[in-house]
Structures are given as C-alpha cells and as structure tokens.
C-alpha cells in the first residue's frame, strides 16, 4: 500500500430539501483514501451511499464540510474521476469503439493515438471482435466491461463505482466482478465502490466502510485481510477462511431489520 492520499473527506454533511421539509442524508463523514486502495461502502438502503459518491465526483455540492482530491477541493465534476453506474449507459447509436471514446471526445482529447489505445484495450479485455458492433449485440457482462474501458480510457486517478454489477444476473455478476477487480488491481487504480452485496464488498475491497441508517454516518471501517495463495482475485478471496467471519461481522454491524 502506498501512502499517497488521494481522497480526503472532512466533516462532510448533506441535507436535501423537499416541499415537505428538510432531510439530513449524511452527517459527520471523515475518511481518507490512499493510492491503489479499493474501498467498499456498504449500508442499509437509503443511507446516502450514492449521494456520497455524487459529492465525491463533484456532481452535487456538500451542505457542509469538504472533499479534497489530490489536495484540491472538489467543487465541480473533475476530469480525473471516473464514474461507473449501475447500468452501463452505452449509447445505442454508437458502436462500441465510439462508445468507449466518448469521454475523450467530450474533453476534446480524441486523436489517432488514443483511438489506437482504445482499440488495444478492447482487444485486451476480450471485446476486439465487437469494436464495430452496436451495444444491443453484446451481452450484459460485455457491455459492463465496455463501460469500464470507457471509464479507464480517461485515465482517472479515482474510480467511483455505484453498484456497478447490480443490473447483471448472478453468474455474470460473479464473473464480471472478478474480472473488474483484477483489472482495477492491474491498472493500479484507486476506487470507491458502493454496493449492497456484502460478499462482493469483501471480495473486492481492501477496506470496507459501514454506514448507519439515515442520516448516514460512518459506523465502522474494517480492514480486509484475507489469506490466500498467489495473486489475489475476488473469486479466490471468497474461498479464504476469514471471508465468513468478515461477512458475519458486517452483517451484524449493518443491523438490518425487516
């Protein structure tokens, strides 16, 4: 682990207003995230997990407190942050190559070199034969992989993943989360992943942040240390003896009553 601080969150608070009144969604959030770390954020539904990601990405402004990325305060969407959504949001009218390069196109960085780079990346991640196909010709897992490539091509310092696998069926979800976990490690990325799937969080994350019910605040931060042979992969992580203990601990801390 590297000591370089990528994200610094201080006394963060978010309140939103409706005609019925005001609702405090998040309060007293303090968190530092270091280079090359994958942070999992779990919490009961409606605890403001996605709101937290939106604030880190600069899409919405915090009501109080501040977020710094690489030492700079976030007050608008930053170009060094990549955001992955629940759905892949590929544009149906663009082929896969034009879909993965859209971020570069918007930022005016499109040239032959980055296009070649995009092609190489598509080939590396098994989409080489589908470069000129339209999204509807791809499976759900392939589409999500294309969405990841679209994000990675912008070479973000920080990736925000908002339940990125929840729209996929269970088998595809396991396979693609394994794959994306490996890609993130291989490309040395720092990432924050919001999920409601405890197992997914343990298998992918280095640390897990547990949020309380609304107003969401940090209840606990758990370091995940799993014993396994060889290179870490999310599927291997699920086989580690500690996996079950972490699962039970997080489940208890989430304190979910139906």
């Amino acid at each position, binding site marked *: 682990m590297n000591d370089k601080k990528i994200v610094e969150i201080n006394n963060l608070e978010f309140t939103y207003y409706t005609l019925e009144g005001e609702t405090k969604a998040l309060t007293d959030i303090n968190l530092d995230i270091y280079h090359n770390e994958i942070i999992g954020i779990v919490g009961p539904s409606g605890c403001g997990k996605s709101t937290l990601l939106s604030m880190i*990405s600069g*899409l919405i402004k915090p009501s109080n407190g501040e977020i710094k990325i690489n030492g700079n305060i976030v007050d608008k*969407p*930053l*170009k060094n*942050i*990549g*955001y992955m*959504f*629940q*759905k892949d*949001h590929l*544009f*149906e*009218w*663009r*082929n896969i190559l034009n879909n993965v390069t*859209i*971020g570069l*196109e*918007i*930022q005016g960085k499109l040239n032959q070199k980055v296009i070649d780079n995009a092609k190489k990346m598509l080939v590396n991640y098994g989409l080489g034969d589908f470069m000129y196909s*339209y*999204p*509807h010709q791809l499976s759900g897992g392939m589409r999500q992989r294309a969405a990841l490539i679209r994000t990675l091509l*912008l070479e973000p310092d920080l990736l925000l993943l908002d339940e990125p696998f929840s729209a996929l069926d269970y088998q595809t979800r396991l396979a693609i989360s394994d794959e994306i976990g490996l890609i993130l490690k291989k490309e040395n990325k720092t990432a924050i992943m919001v999920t409601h799937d405890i197992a997914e969080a343990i298998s992918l994350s280095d640390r897990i942040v547990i949020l309380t019910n609304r107003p969401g605040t940090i209840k606990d931060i758990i370091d995940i240390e799993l014993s396994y042979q060889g290179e870490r992969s999310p599927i291997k992580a699920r086989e580690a003896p500690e996996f079950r203990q972490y699962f039970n601990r997080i489940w208890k801390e989430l304190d979910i009553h139906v």
Partner: protein
Amino acid sequence: MYNDNMIKNHKEFLKNVKKRNRLILITQVGLLVLAILAWELAARFNLIDTFLTSSPSAIWKLFIKYITAGSLFHHIGISVVETIVGFLAGTILGIIIAIGLWWSDFWAKVLDPYLVILNSLPKTALAPIIIIWVGAGYSGIIVTAISISIVVTIMNMHASFKSVDSDKIRLLNTFGASKSQILTKLILPGSIPNLISTIKISIGLSWVGVIVGEFLVSKAGIGYLIVYGSQVFKLDIVMMAVVILALISALMYKIIAVVEKKFLNWIE
C-alpha cells in the same frame, strides 16, 4: 442423420412461412382487384348511379386525358412541393422550439398550457385566419400546413428529449460535458427514433394542411382538383384526385420507412 433431419425440418418451416406470406399478399391484392371489379361491373350494369360514384374505367380515361394534357403533373407537383416545404419547415421549426423548451425548464412550464390548448384545438379552424394574414397564395397554404404539423412535432420531440435517462446525462456530466455537448451527443441522437415516428405523423398532417389550404384558396393542386370537381359535379375528377392523393401519401410513408430501416441499424 439427425443433422440432415434438422435441416429438412428447417426448410419445411421456411417454406411454410413463405407460403403464408405469399397468401397474405395475394389476398391483399385480390381484395383490391375484387373491389375495383365490383365497382366497374356495378357501373356497367347500372346498379349504381355513375353520376355520383363514377367508375374505375372513367377515372382511368380521365387520368390518361390529364396526363396527355400535362396538367396532372402540374397539380401533383404543386401539392407535393407545398407539402414537403410545409413539412420540412414545420419539423425544423418544431425541433428548434422543442430544443428551446428542453434548454429552459422555466419556459417549458410557462408555455405548457398554451401548447396543450393548441394541441387539442382542431387547427384547420385556423386556416381561414392564416390565409387572410399570410396571403391567398402558396405561402398561405404552406403556413397552414406548418401550423397543423408543428404542434405535434414540438410536443413529441420535447417529451422525447425529456425522457432521456438522467443517469446518461450524469455520465456526460462526469466527463465535464457542457449543456450543448449533452444536446448534440446525447439528446438529439437519442431522439432519432422518436423523430422518425413523429415525421410519419407530421407528414400526414402536413397533407391535411395543404388540402385544406387548397380548398380555401388555390388555382392548382390536388385539393383544387377535388374542390373544382365537386363544384362542377364531375365526381370523376374528385375520385381521381383522391386516388392520386392516397398513392402519393403512401409512397411518402414508404420512403420514410426505407430511410428508417437504412439509418437505424443500431436498433434491435
């Protein structure tokens, strides 16, 4: 052996599909031929009054006469040009106004009740006013066509712009996209399927505007032929004009369908 059997079964299946499609086409054409034949025979044997109903052969003779005189293409040409100009202007203006409404949510809300009323108003009622204001010529007819087709275009396209997934907009925002980039990269291309279905409606409405306009003021055009024919009680002319109108509007619809198929290969 098993494989051969499968191929054979598939061939059988394809044959049945083809057979059924052919039967549908034959029946469609047959119905038309039968109707024309019945009409013609009823006219020949004086079962119907040809003064009121005309007859296929009389319409055909008239058609040939108008073609050799050259005036038919003049009438068709004028109406088609009026329709296309009205339809294009209505569509372009309608899209521009819809973009404006998308851009400013405030004005979209302000103008909403007016659009609802304009949409429910039978706009043919406006035709006499428009013709008095704009002038009793081609321009009056074209403006009538625009006024009838534009409201549907505005409302459909604005609804289409607004129905674009807000997470897709958020995605572009995370790339740092400006509002005009969101418009050109996402909102407009994403609305092309809706634009084509709107065009299918508005081209028909544009025809309504042109025909109504020509009913009111014109010296030529298909609408003129219909009004002229009915005023001199020559139903042959009216029937011929209606048949031509049906053929041309069907042709235009077909052209749009072909364009749709050609350019929208990204749709499942």
